[in-house]
């Protein structure tokens, strides 16, 4: 298994190289002028050109790419054109809100969705099952920002139970931290929950029809033990896959939720950078995203071995 893990890690290198080249190329082909945005509307063309030269944005494409790649290989992802801060520092600064949102969303989604999916499978064909599936469809159908606005209206404005917007770091105290994350996590988690519930139900249905489950039933074990200690572990592979993919997407930043709730996460960092053509930030963060995505997929694959001892690499 370790040899497999090492091979997968080494395979990341060409993947990242391709990502770096594609992202760099697309950015420089796309229209937009960061020097003009920096200089401002009142600046003359000479002033804009002076900034362009200072930032080396007027160098040929291949020279800019080599400069950036050389630095990136040494762990230096460059400096933001706008804020003059290292890209890595900007990314790390945004990481806590993003991770916090991703973790809480995952906890809420998994904690609620897995039992719901298990219940639906156990009561397949009944009103409970249809109710769960209807919930799943609704969860996919509503855009996150609509759910966010509704939650804000009910719980923050009308009931005044939770704050409307913002993020408080953990250093400010656990309860302020948690209170600011509840609504965005639920808004984001609803569609994630719907997806996990469906996958759980489908996977559980397959496992519940197997012979060893009939044996467990015959032995007289209580339903909860049958479902959660015998059936669910055998149904876990696709569930873990979908959770892993979802977590990777969450870590990539969920810009709509971050925008609605004013959370300074990685998603907003990237979208702001794209809108203003902050090339080093876009290039650096997308490279980190790619590496993260590859690592998360590797972790999922390795988890299969833990969940299902029959799997060997």
């Amino acid at each position, binding site marked *: 298994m370790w040899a497999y893990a090492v091979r997968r890690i080494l395979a990341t290198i060409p993947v990242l190289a391709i990502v770096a080249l594609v992202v760099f190329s697309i950015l420089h082909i796309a*229209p937009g002028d960061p020097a003009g945005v920096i200089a401002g*509307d009142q*600046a003359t063309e000479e002033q804009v050109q002076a900034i362009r030269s200072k930032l080396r944005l007027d160098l040929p494409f291949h020279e800019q790419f080599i400069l950036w790649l050389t630095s990136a290989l040494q762990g230096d992802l460059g400096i933001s054109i706008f804020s003059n801060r290292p890209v890595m520092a900007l990314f790390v600064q945004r990481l806590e809100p993003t991770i916090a949102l991703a973790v809480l969303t995952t906890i809420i989604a998994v904690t609620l969705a897995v039992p719901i999916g298990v219940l639906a499978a156990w009561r397949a064909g009944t009103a409970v099952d249809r109710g769960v599936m209807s919930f799943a469809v609704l969860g996919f159908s509503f855009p996150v920002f609509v759910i966010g606005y509704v939650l804000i209206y009910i719980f923050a404005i009308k009931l005044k139970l939770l704050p409307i*917007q913002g993020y408080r770091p953990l250093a400010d105290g656990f309860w302020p931290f948690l209170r600011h994350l509840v609504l965005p996590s639920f808004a984001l988690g609803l569609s994630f929950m719907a997806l996990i519930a469906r996958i759980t139900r489908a996977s559980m249905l397959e496992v519940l029809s197997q012979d060893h489950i009939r044996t467990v039933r015959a032995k007289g074990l209580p339903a909860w033990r049958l479902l959660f200690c015998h059936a669910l572990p055998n149904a876990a592979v696709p569930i873990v896959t979908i959770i892993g993919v979802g977590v990777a997407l969450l870590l990539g930043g969920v810009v709509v939720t971050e925008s609605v709730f004013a959370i300074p996460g990685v998603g907003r960092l990237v979208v702001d950078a794209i809108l203003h053509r902050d090339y080093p930030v876009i290039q650096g963060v997308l490279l980190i995203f790619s590496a993260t995505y590859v690592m998360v997929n590797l972790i999922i694959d390795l988890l299969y071995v833990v969940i299902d001892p029959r799997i060997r690499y």
Partner: protein
Amino acid sequence: MKCSRLLSLAAMAALFVIGCGEAALAQKKTVIRSVPIGNLRTLDPIWTTAYITRNHAYMIWDTLFALDADNKPQPQMVDKWSVSEDKLTYTFTLREGLKWHDGPPVTAADCVASLRRWGAKDGMGQALMSYTASLDPVDAKTIRLVLKQPIGFVIDALAKIDSNVPFMMPERIAKTDPNTAITEMIGSGPFRFIASEWVPGSKVVYEKFTDYVPRKEPASQAAGGKVVYVDRVESIYIPDHGVAMAALASGELDLHESPATDLLAMVESNPDVVTVPNDKLGWQLFMSLNHLHPPFDNKAVRQAVLWGIKQQDFLVAMAGDAKRYQVCAAIFACGLPNESKAGIEPLLSGNPEKTKSLLQAAGALGARVALMDQTDNTVHRAVLIAAQALRQMGFTVDVVAMDWSTLIQRRASKAPPAQGGWNVFLTNATATGVENPLVNNFVKNCAEAWYHWACDQRIVDLNRQWALEADPAKRKQITDELQRVHLENVTLVPLGMYRPTIIYRKELVDIIPAPAIFYWNIKKRGGA
């Protein structure tokens, strides 16, 4: 692993997380939480002309002179100043007690270096430096500026309130190449920048600079005593306007510098919220026509456009309520010393049918125009009005949608519209940013032409005359002539002026009316 063991581990993890991160309660401070006009990404007010950076800079840096509520220059960091009889030598003496945020006193050498850096970038500053023979510190507190010839705008330039403002910085920082952004935010202004809490694009924090020595006069726009009554200002960028409004209505925020006009109804009836246009001058909206390519390379066609413009249509789109806008055809804005009524008759007629007949006569009826539309910018609303207006005038309009960054790149292109160029775009500027020929980069002509490439040598000559003229009456004549020529050649098409609204909780009092929100002088009743 057994089920029960898994559940136990999960419970322990939850308890561990809950146990972590409990912080001591913060000391109670008076804090203003506000939403700025935009996303603060760049901190150097000399490197960029962006207003959000200018507004940030007013918090932590100070100026030698500043404009008061009547838009008259007043000494700010300067204690006393004099001009020699031949009007060539200006001597400025700094006030006592001025200190940088990191401790050392402000010196004349700091100011000289700051003026040089500003003078290398800013249009008015460049003009001043072009007439400067020498600029030197005489001693620790005294600055001497010697001119090559008498000019009428020295103090106006040092007091300008629009970007780039001549902020004073420590010499070591001011010696940074003007085309390189500074990285240290050390000023002598009434607030300190808290670098450790800056989240670019999201949050900026300022704290009161307790060693700041304000002037004794009452605060008056950017001049007078900058007395700070709060401990801290947190400027939080919230991209969603609806959420920002709701947060302010509920008390999570104290002030919103730039609320969406169409959402003001959410708070206007709220007794705890004040809605007011804080900038009595506001913004000028204008249209730029590309003089290089057909149809607007033809002066007659450009002049025809003036007759068909109905400013009110544009202003309603930008400001909504009639209380917040005014029809204004003046190139150098209305309500300011250089307001002129020369040559404005076509702009007040609002007669697209007349434009059609003029286009017919010029052989341009139905001419195709590419109108750039910055969809991620508030001016987008006015662009849609412009599209309809130009069609009514008889043009065939192609609306080319793009983001602001792309527009900035494309407007610099001198290529024909069909090859990546353009014919028309709209933008805006603060009234103080267009109020005289030196500060108004948008109407520069010929070699210094802005993105319209207008060239009428009379403009260049009149601008020079205006710069050298100190007599107000003669200056007015030059201004009138300038405007007449600008409108005859249609350097730009003024589309009126509007005043953005701010909203704030009633706990805040004594907000200074100004083009930017100044956080000195504001008191917050009830504390935190």
